[in-house]
């Protein structure tokens, strides 16, 4: 096993630095050389490391851990009398180091991040070709790769937090990439603030972890200093562990757009489409899924928290799927679909099947990236149009896009043997197995979640084929691509989408090869990528390469004090689950076909229930009216009254009193000797009287 992780981090960082400092001066070729070179090499190193790990699996977490430098050193744990640093004895200094952990989980994540990332870099070379902010775009994309690689390969919670915040920054920069658009800037701000709520939660979780485990390292290092996961449950009570897990999950909910912190992701579609594909679908939003898989030991010791993860995941999966059914903007459909699929992953993890969560993360990265890139190709061909009402019939003009998009849609709908089928199936059967195995109230909850999973699978197939038929089916409803010249300067002005000559459907052309080749590669992966997952369905027992690869992280005692027990479903249970999910998927497709086979027709619908879902349950509006506006109003009022009238006025009042007192005292200074003499006499008398009385 060779640990090459540092190169996977360093190369994109180098690319970012070069592009950030000199990008403006570089030619397009130069920019592409730097951006594609660094991200391609990063993928190469990730792949080499991955392959070397296939050959020689790590024997312990410490064997893949590389520590580079001491970040901070603060005090000694447990030796200063009275310092409540914790109960650990001994005099180990409290040290946080920068270290990279290379184990099956991080190796898998690095493969996905750099692999999909590299493909999307290639695609972007075509997609962003005309954008004046070309260099800026690739600088940010490289920065994102660095941050994401840091997130998944940090060996302690502090640098996890650093990566966590830096991917948030990259996301912020890319959502607001077209920074002259008011809507993009607002979306970026919203994404940042909501993500910071998650960072806050993660910080408190880290504080609690330090308080109870006196370290922030995941695993024991080679010097034998114990890591968090190796000393569970430590001196933490069960309630504390649940709190830690829930705080971690709140951070995941912010990053992975789960209830109640999902609101930023649909707005994040303001960014360029490759960004939506890479960051807001395939990689960054899965950070929460990664974190729970990474912290599986904490969750195993706090099953209540894990149950809540499953419930929130299920609720989000269904909630977002219902919204996706009624969206008109093709990217927003995909955004809500992403939220829904992330909910699926959390459901799988909630059923203790972390491997299934990571598996679905992997296949989802393929087909959702493909869907977004396909949508991008459509948007690109239409000159920026994203409204489904202006599309239709594009299957004739965008052949590659259509076929690859169709494969992805079938994959996400769970149609065998495409990738989504295997991973979704594994989550559903794990839920059902968990339900049958535990029984009681918890069992009932898992039955319910399984039902939600099935229902969501049906809804997913429905809205995906509504989308496919809306874009590619029927006949063309639009007026041809929007022709808009770019401003001479960087960025686009709002409202520049003038209708300056639209040439109808014959003005629409397929994207260049640099964009379609990544589509084809991703289509192949979406089709066959699921084969690494599961063959248990037909009784070929345990041919699960991915699960087997990840297994040490969940069951090796060096990684896991309490090996994760996944309730394996019996063949019968699996077939029931599979049959139902495929059946519902087909039903969804048929439903969409029945309604939209002649193309998408938009009708104004005044039904209040429809309006409620169409307006995304009015969540944004309610939040602004109930929380944001009063907060700002109170702040302005406090600023005026407390700061102005009370404090400023108060100090002016005091000054006025002193001024008046001084004025009055001035009158005592008469300048007449007799007055002073009288005062002295009075004083002396008073002193004498005082001492006389006191005795």
């Amino acid at each position, binding site marked *: 096993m060779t640990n090459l992780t540092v190169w996977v981090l360093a190369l994109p960082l180098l690319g970012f630095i070069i592009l950030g400092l000199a990008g403006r001066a570089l030619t397009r070729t130069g920019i592409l050389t730097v951006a594609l070179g660094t991200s391609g090499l990063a993928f190469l190193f990730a792949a080499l490391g991955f392959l070397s790990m296939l050959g020689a699996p790590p024997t312990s977490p410490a064997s893949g851990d590389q520590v580079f430098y001491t970040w901070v050193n*603060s*005090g000694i744990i447990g030796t200063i009398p009275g310092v409540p640093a914790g109960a650990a004895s001994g005099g180990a200094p409290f040290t946080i180091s920068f270290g990279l952990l290379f184990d099956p989980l991080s190796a898998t994540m690095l493969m996905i991040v750099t692999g999909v990332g590299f493909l999307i870099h290639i695609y972007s070379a075509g997609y962003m070709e005309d954008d004046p902010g070309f260099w800026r775009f690739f600088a940010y994309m490289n920065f994102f790769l660095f941050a994401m690689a840091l997130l998944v390969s940090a060996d302690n919670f502090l640098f996890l937090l*650093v990566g966590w*915040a*830096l991917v948030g920054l990259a996301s912020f920069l890319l959502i607001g990439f077209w920074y002259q658009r*008011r809507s993009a*800037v607002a979306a970026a701000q919203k994404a940042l*603030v909501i993500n910071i709520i998650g960072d806050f939660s993660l*910080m408190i979780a880290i504080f609690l972890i330090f308080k109870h485990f006196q370290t922030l390292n995941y695993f024991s290092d080679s010097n034998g200093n114990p890591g968090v996961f190796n000393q569970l449950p430590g001196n933490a009570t069960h309630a504390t562990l649940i709190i830690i897990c829930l705080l971690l999950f709140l951070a995941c909910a912010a990053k992975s757009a789960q209830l109640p912190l999902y609101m930023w992701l649909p707005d994040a579609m303001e960014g360029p489409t490759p960004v939506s594909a890479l960051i807001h679908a395939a990689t960054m939003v899965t950070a929460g899924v990664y974190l729970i898989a990474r912290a599986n030991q904490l969750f195993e010791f706090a099953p209540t928290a894990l149950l809540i993860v499953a419930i929130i995941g299920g609720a989000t999966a269904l909630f977002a799927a219902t919204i996706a059914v009624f969206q008109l903007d093709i990217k927003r459909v995909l955004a809500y679909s992403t939220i829904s699929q992330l909910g699926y992953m959390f459901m799988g993890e909630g059923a203790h099947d972390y491997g299934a969560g990571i598996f679905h993360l992997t296949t989802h990265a393929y087909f959702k990236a493909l869907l977004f890139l396909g949508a991008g190709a459509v948007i690109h061909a239409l000159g920026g149009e994203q409204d489904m009402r202006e599309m239709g019939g594009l299957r004739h003009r965008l052949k590659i896009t259509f076929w690859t998009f169709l494969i992805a849609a079938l994959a996400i709908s769970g149609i065998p043997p495409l990738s989504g089928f295997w991973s979704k199936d594994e989550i559903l059967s794990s839920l059902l197995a968990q339900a049958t195995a535990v029984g009681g109230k918890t069992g009932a909850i898992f039955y319910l979640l399984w039902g939600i999973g099935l229902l969501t699978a049906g809804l997913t197939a429905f809205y995906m084929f509504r989308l496919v038929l809306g874009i590619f089916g029927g006949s063309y409803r639009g007026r041809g691509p929007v022709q808009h010249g770019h401003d001479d300067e960087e960025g686009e002005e709002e409202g520049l989408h003038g209708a300056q000559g639209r040439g109808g459907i014959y003005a629409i052309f397929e994207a260049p090869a640099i964009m379609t080749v990544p589509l084809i590669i991703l289509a192949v992966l979406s089709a066959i990528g699921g084969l690494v997952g599961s063959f248990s369905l037909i009784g070929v027992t345990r041919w699960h390469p991915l699960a087997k690869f990840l297994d040490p992280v969940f069951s090796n005692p060096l990684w896991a004090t309490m090996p994760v027990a996944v309730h394996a479903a019996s063949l019968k249970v699996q077939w029931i689950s599979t049959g139902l999910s495929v059946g519902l998927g087909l039903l969804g497709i048929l439903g969409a076909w029945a309604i939209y086979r002649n193309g998408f027709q938009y009708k104004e619908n005044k039904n209040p229930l429809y309006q409620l879902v169409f307006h995304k349950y009015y969540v944004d509006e309610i939040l602004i009216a109930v929380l944001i506006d009063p907060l700002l109003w109170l702040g302005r009022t406090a600023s005026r009254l407390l700061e102005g009238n009370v404090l400023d006025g108060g100090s002016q009042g005091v000054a006025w009193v002193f001024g008046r007192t001084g004025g009055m005292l001035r009158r005592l200074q008469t300048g007449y000797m007799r007055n002073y003499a009288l005062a002295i006499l009075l004083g002396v008398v008073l002193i004498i009287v005082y001492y006389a009385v006191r005795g």
Partner: protein
Amino acid sequence: MFPLLSLITFLPLIGGIVALLLPRERLNVIRWTALAFAWADLMIVLGLALAYSQTISSFNSTIVGAGPTATYFATVHEQAAWIVTPGFNLSYSLDVDGISLLLVALTSLLTVVCIAASFHIEQKVKNYMAFMLLLECGIIGVFLSSNLFLFYIFWELMLIPAYFLVGSWGGERRIYAAIKFVLYTSVGSLLMLAGIIALGYYHQRLVPGSGYTLDLPTLLSGKLDPTVQMWLFLAFAAAFAVKVPLIPFHSWLPDAYSTAPAPVTAMLAGAMSKTGAYGFLRFCIPLFPNAAHTLAPLINTLAVIGILYCAWLALVQTDIKRLLGYSSISHLGIVMLGMFAFNVQGIEGSVLQMVNHGITTGALFLIVGFIEARTGTRRLSDFGGLARRVPVLATVMFIAVLSSLGLPGLNSFAGEFLALLGAFLSSTIFGILGTAVVVPAAWYMIRLFLGMMEGPRVTEGPVAVLERKNVLSDMYLDEFLTILPLLILIFYIGFQPYPLTFLMEPSVVNTLQHFLSAIPH
């Protein structure tokens, strides 16, 4: 021994006098002379820091598991008899340890940066530069004094240049702001003066036959009655709380910060505000440990209220400098919260946060000054979409904004993380409330940045007029070079804060051990 500390303290004063002696019309000579003195001072401080780090590297290696052995100032010490009569001994004594060294380094660095950023000031250049250097002398003196009488002199010395810098070179309402500032500060200082005199008196009574002294090491050896401690703590705290400032003694700050010229604000916010927090750490806590222990909940409550309340106010400010002023109070609340957590992480985080706050706030005020110099306005609503015209300036501002909102990986995060961790370890609720500020902090800083630099261009107001005339210039090279040291530190300390905690660790541990041995367990 060579009086190194005196040199560091008084070199700026000499520089100020030299500047005053130069011919009035030779503006550039005056400017460069002032800069040269500030720069020389910085170099000497850095040399001292290097030497200091070598002396303590052996100390740090033995610290693991060591009991309370080392003396309070494990450090460079200078002392000379000053006012001596039988039974009355006021010595001139300067000391430096890890904590004060970092703050002195910060002060001298900020002075260099701020003087360099003041080259565009055209009126009364001589006086301006002399006052800037005098301000540096006062601040450094405060950090180095180990005799309370000397300390008080430097403390008051800071006030004079600060008053004139705000009152003479400020913008509108500068006289009002300057007088308010002086009145607030003087009331606190006078209470502290009474406290200092009384402290010497009580200490003299403690040890029969000893003379009256105000030397800090001597004073530290005695244990005062807890009730006396309480009154003295409050008297000292009055001065320090105004300077930090703690809520509700902050009313002078938004006025003074917003009207003063940007480099002066950067000095006040970056360096001078640290004297208050330093006073708490160096005098209040060690001299009155029982009182500090008893009053910690009060201080922490005020700190938490300040952190959240001022972040909230920053969210709705319309004036950019006032916004930064409130943000500054909010961040200094974290300094206080970490300090009064009374554990190593908290205090180290607190000192680290002082340094980082100086760097970041200094940079932000200077950048806003650059922008104000171009546009003549600092109303947030006058701006919009400026990044297109001034991309480099926007990038530099973005880095400072990210640092200020505590982005992990940049400098402020390190201090905030440790300080809040310390606060959390000593009190869960204060820790959580203090940490909660990251959300509004990100919100107001990003609102500031996006409002100024991004979004559609403004169509009316002074900035729009300038844009139409196409006269808004991007950052000049000299501006960039001025701010560059701060940018480098923002990245470097974020990358590895270890050298700073290494420097301060022995001093922090000693302070803490002294404190913990005094309070009941």
